[in-house]
């Protein structure tokens, strides 16, 4: 995989254009279907203006998940319904990236509207896992993680609603962060479940991930949920965990966990113990209700958030004119994929008169309990450690036809989104050549401690130095 330092070095030795052209060549000759749109022209244009730029990411190519609005570059959410939609404005994170000198090389593949755990629900075909092309890269930010794993770009952005950054980071052996809710502005992120999702940075190592996080985090007046976090997260890049207490929640090592995953994560905890941290088991009693609550809330919000896609103003159009009623139904019938329709229907049902109390309001109560679980567990611990995913990457087609099994895979990632706390996933082992992800969770706004823990782990292990063999 490529690091930011290596890329800067390459730019110094040749030029921004050369490095960018190599990057685009790798993407275009790649076999993993990591991108929906490659923005070659605008990227080269941006590269031409990079002379003398002093931003922290000057000349660094970056891939953007296709649900983050980019002015002038098609943004589809991997859906047919948004085919051809070119946003007239940049998301807040894109403005920040451009100011820092990063170059948007294109829009990464994903599950349609970020609904999925495998990137198989993309209208533009599935992304393949660079470690094994017969396997999924995880989802929904599969393209963003796979492009980094495949050494196509050093950095990418994903979004994480119930694990959508951490799951593919785990399956692709890269580092991905779901920040505290509100730390990164969602302005320009096309909503799936707005009370849960955050944009998250992805990189090949903790340092690069932090560098990228530093650029995009911060208050934005256009997002009412936006808050100011730390000023400089790179200060947390400290190789030292002495005195830290790690909590290990037994509920995260439950049914269906792969023994290799369990062993790798425990090895990780013990490695940190050797480095001076202590650990203890913690109880998180409501974890078993998290999945159900998560899907009720996410689908309810999705049913409302996706109402605006009606073919009236942008995206898919019909050949023939109808009255608006028919036009809406036809466009939505043709434009949305199966998983999206399933979630819209379930969400509509859950919010309907008579069912609201039974499902949605109950889910909100569970959400409060989950949040309290985290507060309790993190009272006398500094971070929590658990597997990101219960298994390594599964095979393409293996679970997509059985949505419930697929939803079960999110069991360890969704509680974090319900609680709004930060969590990072980083490689901690391999099983049959497939990467395993370790999840470090922390208190609200305490990204610094999880970054420090992850960085120390990484500095004292070599999992992050391995790359898949890519043709």
């Amino acid at each position, binding site marked *: 995989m490529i690091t930011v330092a290596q890329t800067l070095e390459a730019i110094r030795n040749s030029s921004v254009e050369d490095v960018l052209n190599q990057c685009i060549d790798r993407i275009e000759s790649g076999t993993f279907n990591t991108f929906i749109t490659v923005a070659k022209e605008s990227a080269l244009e941006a590269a031409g203006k990079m002379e003398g730029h002093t931003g922290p990411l000057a000349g660094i190519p970056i891939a953007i998940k296709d649900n983050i609005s980019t002015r002038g570059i098609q943004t589809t959410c991997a859906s047919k319904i948004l085919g051809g939609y070119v946003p007239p404005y940049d998301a807040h994170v894109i403005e920040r990236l451009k100011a820092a000198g990063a170059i948007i090389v294109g829009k990464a593949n994903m599950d349609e509207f970020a609904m999925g755990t495998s990137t198989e629900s993309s209208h533009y075909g599935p992304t393949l896992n660079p470690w094994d092309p017969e396997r999924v890269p995880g989802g929904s930010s599969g393209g963003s993680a796979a492009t980094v794993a495949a050494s196509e770009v050093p950095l990418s952005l994903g979004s994480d609603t119930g694990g959508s950054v951490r799951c593919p980071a785990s399956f692709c052996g890269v580092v991905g962060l779901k920040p505290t809710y509100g730390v990164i502005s*969602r302005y320009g992120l096309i909503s799936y479940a707005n009370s849960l999702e955050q944009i998250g940075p992805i990189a090949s190592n903790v340092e690069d991930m932090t560098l990228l996080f530093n650029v995009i985090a911060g208050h934005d007046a256009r997002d009412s949920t936006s808050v100011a976090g730390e000023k400089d997260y790179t200060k947390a890049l400290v190789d030292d965990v002495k005195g830290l207490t790690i909590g290990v929640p037994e509920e995260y090592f439950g049914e269906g966990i792969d023994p290799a995953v369990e062993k790798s994560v425990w090895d990780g905890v013990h490695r940190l113990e050797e480095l001076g941290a202590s650990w203890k088991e913690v109880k998180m009693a409501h974890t078993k209700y998290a999945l159900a609550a998560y899907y009720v809330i996410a689908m309810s919000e999705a049913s409302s958030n996706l109402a605006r896609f009606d073919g*009236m103003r942008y995206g898919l159009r019909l050949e023939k004119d109808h009255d608006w009623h028919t036009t809406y139904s036809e466009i939505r019938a043709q434009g949305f994929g199966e998983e999206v329709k399933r979630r819209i229907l379930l969400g509509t049902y859950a919010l309907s008169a008579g069912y609201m109390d039974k499902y949605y309001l109950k889910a909100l109560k569970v959400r409060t309990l989950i949040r309290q679980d985290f507060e309790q567990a993190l009272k006398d611990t500094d971070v929590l450690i658990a597997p990101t995913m219960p298994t390594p990457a599964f095979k393409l087609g293996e679970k997509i036809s059985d949505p419930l099994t697929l939803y079960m895979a999110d069991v360890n990632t969704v509680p974090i989104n319900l609680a709004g706390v930060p969590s990072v996933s980083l490689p901690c082992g391999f099983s049959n050549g497939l990467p395993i992800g370790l999840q470090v969770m922390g208190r609200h706004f305490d990204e610094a401690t999880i970054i420090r823990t992850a960085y120390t782990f990484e500095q004292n292990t070599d999992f992050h130095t391995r790359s898949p063999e890519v043709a």
Partner: protein
Amino acid sequence: MREGSLKLRPYLDDVGVMIGLEIHVQLNKLNTKIFCGCPLDYHDDEPNTHTCPVCLGLPGSLPVINRKSVEYSIKVGLALNCTIEEHTQFYRKNYYYPDLPKGFQITQYDYPIASNGYINIEGEDGEVRIRINRAHMEEDPGRLVHEGGSIERSKYTFIDYNRSGVALLEIVTEPDLRSPKEARRFLDKLRNILGYLDVVDTTLEGSMRVDANISLAGGSRSEVKNISSHKGAERALLFEIIRQKNLLRRGGKVVQETRHFDEARGVTVSLRTKEEAHDYRYFPEADLGPIRVADWAPGIQETLPELPDARRMRFVSNYSITDDHARSLTSEKQVADFYEQVAAEVDSKLAAVWIADVLKGELNYRDIGIDAFSSEYMVALVKLVAGDKISEQSGVEVIRTILDEGGNPDEVVAAKGLLKAGGDIVTTAVVEVIEENPQAVEDYRSGKPEAVNFLTGQVMKKTRGRADAKEVREMIIQRI
């Protein structure tokens, strides 16, 4: 209930009319829309020129509350005697319509900005209290423009999103109104209060839109949507009462339905019945979150101006004028201010008569506002009349002339020669008229008292209105 509050409506008449209103008020004196920075002053501009990703509902855009709109809403709530709760919260109301770009409207549901208030109005038998259930904030959708004028006739429809995202305050009454006339009085009173608060320019098209719920004893209620004027509301309700009455009399049933008021024909027509009612799937808008407003209200309460009712009572006691005059003078803030300026300089009772009875009538007739006449002119005019320099009739003529042709009172009086004629001229005229009209004199003497009216008219004509008609009459009677 609050101490000293009026009794709730004690009666239902034979027909049992119950009317409740929902009034959508555009907070159009704000500079920007409710959730974005787009300017509000779009009325003379091209369609879709005052838009941005937020008010167009583009994917990825997020709402940010205009804090001033919250302030204005609290202001209205307090003026309507409402309670402002600890916090307020926005919800999404989900439905599909082409003028609604997000597929949902951001509005309020469980925690409206204001609730449980009232307005007192002149009822059929004295002052009555009309309860306000709630006032909640929401965004205006866009506007559909049907090519060809109406939905039925148009081949296609344009959508103008300039209005999309304008702040609305929806004021909902309890069904306390008993007649179309009361409904109109309520609306007028509400408009007056909003005018005092300076939060709405009610002269702009669409600034106050009314939905009316109406039922008769023994029937279901119907809802008449989107009435754009107060007069329209009165007419629509009148039509509905007659329609429902006839229906019930013929043994029919009033079904719960939504109706549209056809302003041109003065009738209401059915839009949809209850079976098609929406399930709006209200749920909290997580992009905004709750707003704590408890701390805002006391500060805003302090900035509230004296409102029409309080001012009316002060006028009666301070200026010794009748309640009717005070009511007329305080209905609009500008008129009340005008009156106070004039009353400070001249006799307050006389000023009330001249402003409430004369000037307001002339203004209404011309459909213009009080700013068309200066308070200094009114002071000058009242002084001329009070000092017996011109007749009352001339006073009226001065006002009319100034409104129609301009000029100030002194100029008009001079140009038209309206200064009251001195005694000699009047006496001469009386003598002349008696000499010139022996037949009328004879008629009077033989028992036809109305003949004196003719003679008085002749004297007035001779003196070109500068004499006092009452005095002239006395003089004639004395002489014949």
